[in-house]
Every structure is written in C-alpha cells, then in structure tokens.
C-alpha cells in the first residue's frame, strides 16, 4: 500500500467519523410507534411440509405481518429520513439476512443503497430468496444448505417484499434507504435516529405491507426530539 493510499484511507476514516460520530451540535430524534384499532390476528404457521424446520419450533411460530408489544406498541416499523438529509455512500460493513428455522431473521431489514447484503442459509434445506423488487432489478435465487452466502446490492431506494418460493410462509422486507439515518422499531415500539445535524427533516415511518406516515421535524443544535407515530390497524 502506498503512502497515498494510507493517507486517503485515513482521510476517509476521519470523514466517516465526523459524519457518524456525535459531533457537537448533532440532534437526535426518538419516539415510539403505537397503533390504534385491532391488529390482524397472527396465525400459527404449520411447517409440517418441511420437517427439518418444523422440529425447530416446538410451539409453532406465527406470522409476523403485525408484531405488537404491551401498550399497543408496534414492532418492525422502519423510520427514516425521507427528505432533508443528503444521500450517503454505503458503509463498507455488510448487513446480514439469515434464514433460520424457515424464518427470516430479521423480519424487517433496513440498509442503505449499494450496501452489501449477505444472505445466509442456516437450515438443512434449500431456501429460495425472491425479493419482489419493482424499482430495482428483481432476482430469484435458491440457496442449497451449506453453500456460500448470497451477496447482493440494491442501487435504488425501495421497500422490497422478500419471499421464499419453496416455503411460501416465509416473508420479510428489505428497506433500502438512501442515507444512514434510519431505525427499525424494537419490540417496545422504540426507535432512535441519532447524529442529525441541524436542519429540517421529513421523517417517514413505514409498516408492511404499504402503510406510511410522515412528519416534519426541525433539529437545531444538539437537542433530542420525540416524535410518535400511531398506525391505524384493522383486523382483516
């Protein structure tokens, strides 16, 4: 490695640190996702067709289209800055998407455009990964057990529904986003967008299959603002 390369690398690291690490005057947006109404009943999944997976779930897992917590909190909502923040280059670290027990882990995976996506199969059976991209290039690949991870990238922002064609109950979402300011609500519905430079932002909360809410937030200095979203849910 030449000196020039070392220098450039150092410069890049420095830039990355200034961008991501909390510099003076960077704000944070936190909040909670809750819902109103009656969420759809999550049905147990019968995996008897795939005995090697069924045996991993002594009590059947349920669908994950709506995952709620105590106090009407809503999990798996992706919250991101949809306007106000510049597009960012992808970080070099890949994101992992696992298939385990015929289930996607995580169910909702958010990552950046052009960021490396590493898909692994931890099961004893072949899986098929079919992200139903509409803006990005759609692809459909199978992954036999014991084969190397599938590496993929998406170059446009999109919410992509992911399916396994071999195991029709497997369902997940790729949230491909333009910048690093995103968060997926945890089991208590909490999300946190740190390190925001001062500015006016539009933040969007998105829940599958296609529910979307936005709010405008202004950050001035190193403050923490709280924003809440309340999704309306219907039983069917």
């Amino acid at each position, binding site marked *: 490695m030449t000196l020039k390369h070392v220098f450039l690398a150092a410069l890049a690291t420095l830039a990355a640190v200034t961008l991501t690490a909390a510099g003076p005057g960077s704000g944070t947006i936190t909040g909670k996702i809750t819902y109103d109404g009656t969420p759809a009943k999550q049905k147990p999944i019968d995996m008897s067709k795939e005995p090697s997976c069924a045996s991993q779930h002594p009590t059947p897992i349920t669908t*994950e289209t709506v995952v709620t917590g105590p106090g009407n909190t809503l999990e798996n909502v992706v919250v991101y800055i949809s306007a106000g923040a510049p597009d960012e280059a992808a970080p070099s670290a890949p994101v992992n998407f696992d298939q385990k027990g015929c289930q996607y882990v995580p169910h909702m995976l958010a990552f950046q455009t052009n960021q490396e996506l590493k898909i692994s199969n931890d099961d004893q059976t072949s899986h098929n990964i079919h992200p139903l991209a509409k803006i990005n290039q759609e692809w459909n690949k199978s992954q036999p057990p014991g084969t190397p991870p599938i590496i993929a990238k998406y170059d446009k922002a999109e919410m992509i529904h992911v*399916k396994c064609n*071999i195991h*029709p109950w497997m369902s997940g979402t790729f949230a491909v986003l333009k910048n690093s300011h995103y968060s997926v609500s945890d089991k208590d519905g909490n999300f946190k967008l740190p390190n925001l430079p001062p500015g006016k932002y539009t933040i969007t909360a998105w829940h599958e299959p296609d529910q979307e809410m936005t709010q405008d937030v202004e950050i001035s200095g190193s403050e923490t603002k709280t924003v809440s979203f309340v999704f309306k849910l219907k039983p069917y």
Partner: protein
Amino acid sequence: MGKLLAVTIIIIAIASAVPFVMHTWEPPADVSTHGGLIDEQMADTMIEAGVSFLAAQILLGLFIWQFSKPRTDSKVKTFPGGAKGLVIAAIVLVGVEVLALGAFGSKAWAAVYFTPPAADAMPVQVQAGQFAFYFRYPGPDGKFGPLHPEMINEGNQNLFGLDPEHDVESRDDVVTAEMAIPVNKEVHLLMHAKDVSHSFYVPALRIHQDFVPGLDLSLHFTATKVGTYEIVCSQLCGLGHYNMRAYLKVLSQQDFDEWMKKEQAAQ
C-alpha cells in the same frame, strides 16, 4: 461373439425381471377402497408384460446363439410358418391379450372416475400453489366462503384469498397445511390451482390427479387404514417442485374431531 451376445441378452433379461418377481421395490400398501382393482390390474399386466419380455429376449438370444455360428453351407432356412404365423401370433397372443387387459382395466378406472361421490361425503378443498398444498374445511356451516384471488397473501397466511370481513361463510372456514380425514369415511376432494399446474399424488391411496388452473376438478375416495401418508406433487410446477408435499393423516373419527377442534382454535 454371437454366443456371448446371446448369453448376455438372456442374463440381462432374467436379471431385469428378478426385482419385479422378488417384489424388491413395491408401491406403498394400498389403503383405499378402490385401489384393489388397480393393484390387480398391475399384477395382471405384470404377468403379461413379463412373459412377453422374457419370451422375446430369450428367443432373440437363442436365435443369435444358433445362427451366428459361421457356417460353410450356403443354405438359409426359413422360420417354420413364415411371416404369416408370426403376424398371427403378434395379433392373437399379444394384441388381443393386451386389448382384453385394457378392457378389464377400464373397470378399475371407472371405479375412480365414473362414480359419483356419496351424498354424505366429507368435502375438503385442496389448493395447490408454488410450492405447497393447503386444505380448507367448510366449518360448522358446511359452506366454503368464496375465493378472492387478489386477496391472497402468504405473508399473513391468507392462503386462499378469503375475505372474512365481508363473507360470512368464510369466517368459520378451517385452513390447514396438513390434511386430516376420518378413516372409512368418503372424502369429496375439491381441487383448486392457485397458480400453475400441479398434481395430487398419494401413492398409498391410489389417487393421482392433476390440478388445472382455471378449472376446478373433484375426486372422491375413502381411506381404510389409520396412518400418515404423503401427498406429493407430480406435475412439474417450478423450482420447488421436489419439495411440494403435505401429509395426509387418516384418523379415527374421534381423533379427527379433536384435530379439527385444535385447528379451529388456531384460525
């Protein structure tokens, strides 16, 4: 070298027949009311085919043995009876025999396809889709709710596209991933294809029928033995074809009722 060929052909012929004679590999034991006729037909055909096969190969071998010997005399002989005898043999011994076999076999076919289901047959709908079977029982109201293909969503397990919000009949429908039926009770199977052609093949039940997209077919059968059997897809339907299967549980009426209760609770 002719003799070697003769011996090889005869050895291969006999060796080929051995696994059939010894029943080394067999279809799963029949557990249906109609399967006996099919099994009988298979056994009869096996005898006819086996005899024809061995006779032809052995005759071929014997003649090669006999007539590949280098001979100095210039004489050739003609098969006694000439062509006429052989043509008659082909028509009478093989043709008529096989046609008769076919005529008797239509009885087995008729038993499956030309009989109406009993009035009290239990209706079960099966939907084949890439790459799983799903089953639907009409529930206490005895009625299947209408299908709305545009509402199908596998992510939330609305596998048939039911609309319980608007369709009252759909609310008590029981959707399952395995098929359970009571033993000795006729089942009226309503077959629906979600996407492409599939097939419903249960070797133990002697049932095999393709799903036709756009055309709902039906079958009826009675299982006679409690147990778990495999339902497999035999019509190439895409990449997961090999993995498209479901289990058929033949249960006693009591066990079936319990199973149904459990499934209803899970809806």
